[in-house]
């Protein structure tokens, strides 16, 4: 039968099922297909901390949301247009997020008494479709026995019923791929490779995938196929990439561009472990990965490697930073390059391991004993993790300092199309190892008896570069530069232990001044203020870039003025930040914490930063943020602001 084709500018699909149903893989494949097709996209994986939470329960629900469009988008979307629910719990857990009229494709197979009870349903909601008491009445529901159709489609492979049913996610993927006209080649290639060693499973998955597609094409259930045209993007080669992968590649790139071998000392922790996994594949670039006995050993080994002339890196999440704090202080004191990567998650303590949060900013800033300034860099999107890692390495190597790189769970697991950079466009980073003595002990002269005496020289490990205030990095194996460093305060210049009060005061101020001087190497901030008439500035950092941008677009689309600035450098702040803040009547700071950047801005610039704070483990929703921006615009300009009549588009 011929199907009607309907044009859409954007769609948000959420795949939801039990933790073991393969929803992350399904979402990831749909994303890859959409990326190859050329849509702009943003994804939001959401899964429980338990590897296999009790089957069929609400806590066990795993979901993957993908927002794809024919235009530039910034977020994974506030509310799904389509929900694919593989069991009763997935339906129940996600129903509250759906707008009226949303499509629900539901696998009826698991809607048994037992599973309904586990999900907290007294009665099967699918039995009342169209009735007066239909709880799904607001939605467009398609109840289908996806599992049954999958088992039927793959019966020729002789798999057990359980194994056959496991291919149901590929059937669902095939159906959705048909519905949105996705290219299927990459998924077939992926399945072929993934299950190369188990031909039956491979063939069953490919068959289920194709059966899902064919079902869409032939069934009368679906009469409409949707088309979302490719989004215009600037010329270049693209790939879809998650933040953790981009960050890993950025570290490899930092090694290549500095000529330094990368040494990662790390202890497994969610959501940072994937960086350890990824870097352990890249030994051919001279990357060493040490899975240490604990968080402290991870950073300790990295510091040792840096002392030995490698670029030491440690990756972790908030609880790991807490454990590493003393060692980071040692790196501050010994002034060695070190990258400390914190993929933030919900806290405090163990908190929400698989959910996102931005509440480690103050820990990164101040979480050490003594005056221990550490530069902080934060990527704003998954793809930006690549460049942010290179930038963090530049600062660490140039200024001989530990640098904190603050990613988060949303960036780590979320993905977006990434324009692959030209390696030659990345900065070259000069390790500038010390190779010669730098201090004159006794000048050349003439002795009393008239003989010429040669100049006597030695090496001072704390004799600083005048411009950067960085100390020389003399690595073991360099003759004549033997020296000792350590956690005790050192005398400026000569670097011997010093308890002198004036010296300590000088060293504390010098370490701070060195970090402050990094600001001189930063580009001016980009101010997004299209009309130039905004009185309200929205400023953020890290992964809130997307929601803030989308929120600002909504406000502008409704005819109002708002400016946006996003900070990549949190310490030191860029030199022009104070002047920019002073230009606006109101400053709004949306954060996934209780106001940490607000506190820093207020402290440094005496600006009345107004916080917009959400700490629920999820990205901020653009529509809600737009309302907050709108309210502030109304206040600042003394006007009524109404965002509702306009068709909001992200």
């Amino acid at each position, binding site marked *: 039968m011929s199907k009607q084709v309907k044009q859409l500018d954007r769609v948000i699909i959420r795949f939801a099922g039990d933790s073991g149903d393969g929803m992350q893989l399904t979402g990831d494949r749909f994303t890859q297909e959409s990326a190859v097709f050329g849509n702009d996209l943003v994804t939001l994986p959401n899964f429980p901390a338990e590897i296999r939470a009790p089957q069929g329960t609400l806590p066990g629900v795993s979901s993957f949301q993908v927002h794809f469009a024919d235009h530039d988008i910034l977020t994974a979307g506030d509310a799904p247009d389509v929900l694919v629910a593989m069991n009763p719990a997935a339906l129940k857990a996600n129903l509250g997020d759906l707008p009226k009229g949303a499509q629900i494709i539901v696998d009826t197979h698991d809607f048994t008494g037992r599973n309904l009870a586990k999900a907290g349903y007294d009665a099967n909601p699918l039995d009342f479709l169209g009735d007066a008491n239909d709880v799904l009445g607001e939605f467009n529901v398609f109840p289908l026995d996806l599992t049954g159709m999958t088992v039927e489609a793959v019966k020729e492979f002789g798999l057990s019923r359980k194994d056959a049913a496991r291919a149901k996610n590929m059937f669902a993927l095939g159906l959705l791929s048909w519905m949105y006209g996705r290219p299927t080649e990459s998924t077939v290639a992926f399945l072929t490779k993934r299950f190369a060693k188990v031909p039956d499973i491979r063939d069953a998955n490919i068959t289920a995938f194709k059966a899902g597609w064919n079902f869409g094409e032939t069934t009368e259930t679906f009469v409409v196929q949707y088309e979302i045209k490719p989004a215009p993007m600037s010329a270049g*080669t693209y790939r879809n990439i998650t933040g953790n992968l981009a960050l890993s590649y950025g570290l490899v790139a930092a090694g290549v561009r500095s000529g330094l071998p990368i040494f990662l000392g790390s202890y497994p922790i969610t959501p940072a472990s994937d960086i350890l996994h990824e870097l352990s594949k890249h030994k*051919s670039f001279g990357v060493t990965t040490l899975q240490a006995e604990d968080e402290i050993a991870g950073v300790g080994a990295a510091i*040792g490697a840096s002392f030995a002339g490698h670029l030491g890196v440690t990756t972790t999440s908030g609880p790991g930073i807490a454990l590493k704090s003393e060692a980071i202080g040692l790196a501050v004191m010994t002034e060695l390059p070190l990258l400390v990567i914190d993929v933030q998650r919900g806290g405090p303590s163990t908190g929400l391991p698989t959910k996102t949060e931005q509440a480690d900013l103050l820990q990164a800033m101040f979480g050490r004993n003594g005056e221990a300034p550490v530069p902080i860099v934060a990527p704003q999107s998954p793809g930006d993790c690549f460049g942010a890692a290179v930038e963090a390495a530049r600062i660490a190597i140039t200024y001989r300092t530990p640098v904190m790189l603050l990613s988060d769970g949303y960036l780590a697991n979320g993905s977006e199309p990434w324009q692959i950079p030209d390696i030659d466009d990345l900065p070259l980073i000069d390790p500038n190892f010390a190779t010669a003595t730098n201090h004159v002990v006794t000048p050349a002269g003439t002795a009393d008896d008239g003989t010429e005496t040669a100049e006597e020289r030695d090496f001072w490990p704390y004799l600083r570069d005048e411009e950067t205030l960085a100390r020389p990095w003399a690595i*073991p194996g360099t003759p004549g530069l033997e020296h000792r460093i350590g956690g005790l305060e050192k005398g400026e210049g000569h670097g011997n232990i010093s308890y002198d009060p004036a010296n300590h005061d000088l060293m504390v101020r010098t370490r701070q001044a060195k970090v402050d001087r990094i600001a001189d190497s930063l580009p001016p901030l980009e101010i997004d203020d299209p009309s130039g008439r905004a009185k309200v500035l929205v400023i953020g950092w890290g992964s809130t870039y997307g929601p803030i941008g989308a929120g600002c677009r909504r406000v502008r689309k409704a005819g109002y003025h708002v400016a946006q600035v996003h900070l990549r450098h949190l310490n030191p702040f860029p030199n022009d930040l104070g002047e920019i803040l002073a230009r606006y009547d109101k400053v709004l700071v949306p954060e996934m914490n209780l106001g940490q950047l607000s506190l820093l801005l207020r402290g440094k610039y005496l600006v009345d930063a107004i916080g917009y704070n959400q700490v629920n483990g999820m990205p901020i929703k653009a529509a809600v943020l737009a309302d907050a921006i709108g309210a502030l615009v109304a206040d600042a300009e003394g006007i009524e602001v109404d965002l509702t009549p306009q068709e909001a588009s992200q």
Partner: protein
Amino acid sequence: MTTPTTAELPFPGVRSGVELVPTNSEPQTGKEYTSDQEVRWCPGCGDYAVLKAVQGFLPQLGLRRENIVFVSGIGCSSRFPYYLDTYGMHSIHGRAPSIATGIATAREDLSVWVVTGDGDALSIGGNHLIHALRRNVNMTILLFNNRIYGLTKGQYSPTSETGKITKSTPMGSLDHPFNPVSLALGAEGSFVARTIDSDRKHLTSVLSAAAAHRGTSFVEIYQNCPIFNDGAFDAIKNNDTKADAIIPLVHGEPIHFGVEGSKGLIRDAQTGGVKIVATSDVAEGALLVHDAHNPDPSTAFAISRLTDSGYLNQSPIGIFRQVERPTYDDQARAQIATSREAAPGEPGDRLTALINGGDTWTVV
């Protein structure tokens, strides 16, 4: 004395601990290894003797001075690196083995030494110590055991005898002490030895064997603290008691001690361990012959248990165990070398290929 060559090592074909470290053609002196920093230990501290022994030993190693790195943690002994004119890091409490692991793994051309104490290595840094031993990273760990906390002024340590009266334990400590050698053997250390600060000849011979060993060499050094735990090792230091107190371990030799070798070790059939007997009570040839190279550490462990856990009246001294086992750092570097060989080409080109991997699309 010089460093044993590979041929002289117990394991033919195995590289020595310093084999990849550049050597010095000129003879060196202890003075070259002495930094210009004033040594600030208490008068009479055993650390002086160890420092002197190390400064005297390092020139014999014949390595380039710039390729030697000393790493320490926190405590009296951890000031050690400041007094040696090599590369060094005085780090943070307990973490020296992890920092040294990074250094030794990053660079095959360095001779890496850790100086630590009983509190640093066995209390706050216990985890790093056992994992360094387990991994067998090529470095030498010198554990100065004075059985007390000195730098914090006299609290009991994890090797102090139970019931010790200290500032923090006025009614006597309740903790059962660690036996550092037993612990190292339990962590499957590939080189485990014990020596004494005041016996420079024995100390130097153990340092030499430890440096030559490829892997983590663990050396416990009994070291007297004259201020907070004076006399802790008197029994093994006094001429009139030491014959009965020291059980000398020499590879290939029957283990006997006491005045005129009156005592010796035999296997204890009942416990499976070892026991002390009067040599006159057993047949000639019945004494246990020390085999430091036995792959099974059980006997070495049994011997280590002869150390008193209370006041030290008796302790085996020498190399308990010296076995060949692949080192973590050699293998880590070998994995990198193998991967590099399998991926020829410029790093920049390979990086371009890497980031262009996966499903890509091009917008023109």
